[in-house]
């Protein structure tokens, strides 16, 4: 569920097929830089009604999923 929502938000942001995004996908492979990650995190926060920490270790979709799951569980 979390993966699907994140996929959807990323796909909407960079205009790609959600199906091409997996947990292993790195932001750098999608051309998403640190400023884009901040924006992405903010839309995820709105979507799940949570607050996340952003740091330099957030490099792949799986990192985002982990961060979200730790907040909603």
């Amino acid at each position, binding site marked *: 569920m979390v993966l699907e929502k994140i996929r959807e938000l990323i796909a909407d942001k960079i205009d790609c097929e959600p199906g091409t995004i997996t947990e292993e996908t790195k932001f750098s492979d999608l051309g998403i830089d640190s400023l884009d990650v901040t924006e992405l995190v903010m839309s995820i926060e709105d979507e799940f009604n949570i607050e996340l*920490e*952003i740091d330099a270790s957030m490099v792949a979709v799986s990192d985002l999923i982990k961060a979200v799951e730790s907040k909603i569980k």
Partner: protein
Amino acid sequence: MIKSPICDMLKIKYPIFQGGMAWIADGKLAAAVSNGGGLGIISAMNAGADYLKGQIDIARSLTDKPFGVNIMLMSPYADEVAEIVVSERVPVVTTGAGNPSKYMQSWLEAGITVIPVVASVAMAKRVERSGAAAVIAEGEESGGHIGELTTMAIVPQVCDAVSIPVIAAGGIADGRGVAASFMLGAAGVQLGTRFLVAKECSVHQNYKEMVLKANDISTVVTGKRFGWNTCRSIKNNFTRNFSKEEYAPDATAEKIALLGVGALRLAAVEGDKQNGCFLAGQISGLVNKEQTAAEIIKEIFDEAEALLKGANSWVK
């Protein structure tokens, strides 16, 4: 007399900050700027708590006016300097190179006014939510670490997105830049390069000469390829080598990271014109004389005031 909400918030006469330039913005320069009516800022740079404590003591011995500390969040010592600003009751903290949210709570509890440097609207909204009192929207015209947006583009967009005051930074060196910043919606300005040549600035004389000699096309951006350390500095042997290595077919992020190690110190302390990295903004060409910090501030605001008073002449 130009006044803005920033003056009341920080108890300063002029709404101007001196940028927290690593290896340059020490306690002596910060005190001179604060005595001149602006907000002097000490750079905590990549140094530990002892260095910062020493510089705070120097600033306090030279001024009773408010001053700030700039914390580079990528610094390996960020945790310990974040504690020192609390125990020393530093009135203002500005942050750069990252997201300050991890420290925000302890700073706010200590009564510190936190003003992060932001390079995008999303970042500005985030820090406003965490309790920032204002933000510094910095365009890529500035020296040192930079984002992608220009000052002309980022300042009005950040002003529209947040309800806290916005300080404009990047590409401002004189009264024209200050007047324009106010027109973009800013409530204050931050200048680095112009204060670098202040008489009270202890940076190596060769560094000042490089800035004074520089013209409009003297600076270059390096570090863009790997994205994590994009910096503007004055073109020299160091930047030419860096660019060559950065775009070499066998370049890796790790290899490139090593190229910059120690280069700021070589520039600021040793004045090594060949191998140092002389961070400076695009407006270096406008900076052509050494003055005291107080003279710089007064000249800039006299000019800005005259310009803003004359702005009506455009409206027919």
